[in-house]
């Protein structure tokens, strides 16, 4: 057997869940195409006006979410592609807060935290809707730019990612800044990368006989800034994401000591942050392929930190003692963080292809590929306040 044959042979024995993933993905793509083409066929039977109006008015994902949702303030916020952003009240109904205009090229970028919902159309403006209101106000305005995205930072602040590029696309600036979630004031800059192109200098080098690439490199100057330390306040704790290599490799420290294993690499942007916990992604390595994800690290205000491995969905925190995640066998798992013991709360076919959100009282499951409706479950607790089951209270939160 040649070496390549040996390798091919050994690849045959990789983990079952990875082998199963491929036919599942194939099936999901096939079904999505069926839904899409069925919708188009239905539309073409109508007497129509503008073709572009029709494309804008078709909701490709009317069964599910397609874009990840978020829990905060007792609500569940989610976006339907080409439709808008909704707020769902458990045991109540969904309310459309923002409607996507048919002329918009992109859906909204949004993030929620303890202070409310923040959203942007990707231009230079960020709007805010407090939890118990449906009034949107202009919250933050960046200088003229091309693209803007929002992300989680802490339970109150938000991260704003700004992309600027000139008309000729040679000047480029990328910034990640923290904006105070109450005042709208810009705080620290976490990362900045700037390319400035001198077209006159470029032309001069071309005239001297330099190649296009060489002339470009001579005429282009790059500046880069990466914050050495990023602080996260969590209750009485102060955690620090510390840059140990070129703004790429970070580690997580508290009082000067690392909280992670020696080989761990921190993805300094949190997955989720509340006043009680922050969930970070931990990687095994970071090379030309990118960040190689390994585990989730959950830091808690009460000091009872934990790690979750092998979870397809971001683990969600219940109260101080329990957290939840979806495993590869389609189970929603409950973990007792005091003992490390796990038990199954619910099994549902193909659950591992869904994403899950929770605020500790309710669990929401949503589909990546819009095949099934998003559902809301109430977490049931026994006399010892241990979660033992989930009770479906809404099988389609969009209804």
């Amino acid at each position, binding site marked *: *057997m*040649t*070496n*390549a*044959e*040996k*390798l*091919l*042979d*050994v*690849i*045959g*024995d*990789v*983990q*079952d869940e*990875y*082998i*199963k*993933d*491929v*036919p599942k*993905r*194939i099936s999901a*793509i*096939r079904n*999505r195409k069926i839904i899409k083409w069925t919708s188009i066929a239905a539309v073409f039977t109508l007497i129509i006006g503008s073709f572009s109006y029709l494309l804008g008015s078709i909701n490709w994902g009317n069964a599910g979410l397609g874009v990840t949702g978020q829990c905060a303030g007792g609500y569940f916020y989610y976006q339907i592609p080409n439709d808008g952003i909704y707020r769902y009240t458990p045991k109540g109904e969904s309310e459309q807060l923002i409607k996507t205009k048919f002329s918009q090229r992109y859906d909204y970028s949004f993030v929620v935290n303890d202070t409310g919902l923040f959203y942007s159309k990707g231009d230079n403006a960020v709007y805010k809707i407090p939890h118990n209101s449906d009034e949107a106000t202009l919250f933050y305005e960046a200088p003229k730019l091309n693209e803007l995205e929002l992300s989680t930072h802490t339970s109150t602040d938000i991260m704003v990612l700004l992309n600027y590029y000139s008309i000729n696309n040679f000047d480029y600036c990328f910034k990640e800044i923290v904006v105070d979630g109450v005042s709208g004031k810009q705080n620290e800059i976490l990362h900045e990368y700037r390319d400035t192109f001198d077209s006159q200098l470029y032309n001069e080098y071309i005239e001297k006989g330099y190649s296009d690439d060489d002339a470009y490199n001579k005429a282009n100057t790059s500046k880069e800034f990466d914050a050495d330390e990023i602080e996260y306040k969590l209750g009485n704790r102060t955690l620090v994401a510390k840059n140990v290599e070129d703004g790429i490799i970070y580690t997580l420290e508290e009082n000067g000591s690392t909280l992670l294993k020696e080989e761990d690499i921190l993805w300094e942007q949190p997955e989720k942050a509340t006043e009680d916990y922050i969930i970070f992604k931990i990687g*095994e*390595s970071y*090379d*030309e*392929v*990118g*960040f*190689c*994800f*390994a585990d989730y690290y959950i830091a808690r205000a009460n000091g009872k930190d934990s790690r979750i491995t092998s979870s*397809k969905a971001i683990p969600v925190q219940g109260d101080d003692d329990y957290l939840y995640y979806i495993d590869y066998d389609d189970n929603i798992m409950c973990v007792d963080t005091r003992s490390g013991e796990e038990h199954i709360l619910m099994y549902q076919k193909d659950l591992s292809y869904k994403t899950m959100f929770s605020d500790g009282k309710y669990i929401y499951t949503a589909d990546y590929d819009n095949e099934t409706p998003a559902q809301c479950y109430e977490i049931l607790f026994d006399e010892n306040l241990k979660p033992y089951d989930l009770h479906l209270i809404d099988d389609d939160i969009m209804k």
Partner: protein
Amino acid sequence: MTDENIIKLYFDRNEQAISVTKNKYGKYLYTIAYNILHIKEDCEESVSDTYLGAWNTMPPKKPNVLQTYLGKLTRNISLKRFRNNSTQKRGGTQTDIALEELSEILASDNSVEETIERDVLLNFVQRFVKGLENEQRQIFIARYWYMYSIKDISQKLGYSESKVKSALKRSRDKLKDELKKEGLI
């Protein structure tokens, strides 16, 4: 019928186990065989051998995931048949191409330690695959486990061909680097 009940048929030595397996997984297994062998008769023989292999190994084996257990049987049988066939003829099959791609990682027959145990290499490959991002892992498995062509992967998994090619190239480069770091090459 659930997988658990199908396995029970094997354990009860009920010959219906084969026909039930064929109904549920026949097409899946044929696809695996076809991606490797491309010849209808060879594929049918591989799948038949799979059913025989399942009958002979269950019991005592009780797979956690029947689909992948059968899939692995078919893949192994088909690869063996492919090696036997390739001594007689050469072709541009996906298996040939996949082997050529993996050969780039392992430059010559002398580069892998002769005494390396399969378990060691398997442990390494499992860790490597686990460390890949979801999409990259799906593409890697679709190529080197299922032997789908680039075009098939693109169409079936919903990615552009350039993304598939790029993901595979990066995976192979990463695999090579990590094999070196582990001292396996």
